[in-house]
């Protein structure tokens, strides 16, 4: 009985994880620029994988401690990777498309001036 319940929960986790990953990949294809696409790619590589790991823990309960550690590390590392790529894109000057509001633009102007001042010197 318990085993069947665990299997059902695992199937549900696989289903949700797969649908989540699929929507994420559709987003990756449809969204306009690097920053928006990183939302899709970053979240899929975190939660898609986490949900599949949850399914593995529920279905095969031999190495659950290792699985939980893996989930914790994935949840910590995923956002860091997405932030690193977004930060690198911004620092190398990749433009945004269709911006509604940009609180960083003023910041960018200042650092650009500093850069050119440094180049003149």
């Amino acid at each position, binding site marked *: 009985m318990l085993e069947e319940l665990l299997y059902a929960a695992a199937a549900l986790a696989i289903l949700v994880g797969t649908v*989540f990953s699929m929507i994420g990949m559709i987003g990756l294809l449809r*969204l306009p620029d690097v*920053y928006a696409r990183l*939302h899709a790619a970053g979240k899929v590589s975190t939660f898609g994988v986490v949900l599949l790991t949850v399914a593995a823990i529920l279905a095969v309960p031999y190495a659950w401690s290792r699985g939980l550690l893996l989930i914790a590390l994935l949840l910590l590392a995923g*956002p*860091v990777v*997405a*932030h690193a790529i977004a*930060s690198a894109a911004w620092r190398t000057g990749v433009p945004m498309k269709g911006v509604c*509001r940009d609180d960083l633009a003023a910041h960018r102007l200042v650092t650009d001036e500093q850069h050119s001042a440094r180049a003149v010197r």
Partner: protein
Amino acid sequence: MLAYLRLVLICLVLFLALTENAEPANIVLGLLIGVLVALVVRPAPDLLSIRRLPLVLFNLARYTLWLAVDIIRNGIRVARIVLDPKLPIRPGILAIQSEMKSELGIALNAHAITVTPGEQVVEIGEDGVLYTHCLDVVASAESAEAAQRTRRRLMEGIFR
């Protein structure tokens, strides 16, 4: 010294839980690995105290639960945006003031924002201003303040 011992102990417990093997040889190996990790990491003396550990663990669980609810709610919102034929995104970068003061606090705050679907920290300015790229910057600007307050309340239970 106490901080080192504590870290060694935590590493030993983690190692034993992961290897699922409590033979004396394995315990010695776990101790050696713990000492090695402690020597490399150099733990901060007052980051974690055993006496507050149950409370911290409880607050950590509460924080994780709130984060999970937030992730699911925002995930559905973003999925609806992505699947909409018109693709109604309003992208932009929002400056959010970090509620925490310490380096670790700012980092955790940025992590909490980035882990939420539809929001992602691009750059961290002076005084812990988190420049966040949002898929729907108008909606995020409305909800950011309340979310930051809740994050602060939950995180203070972990740190202090």
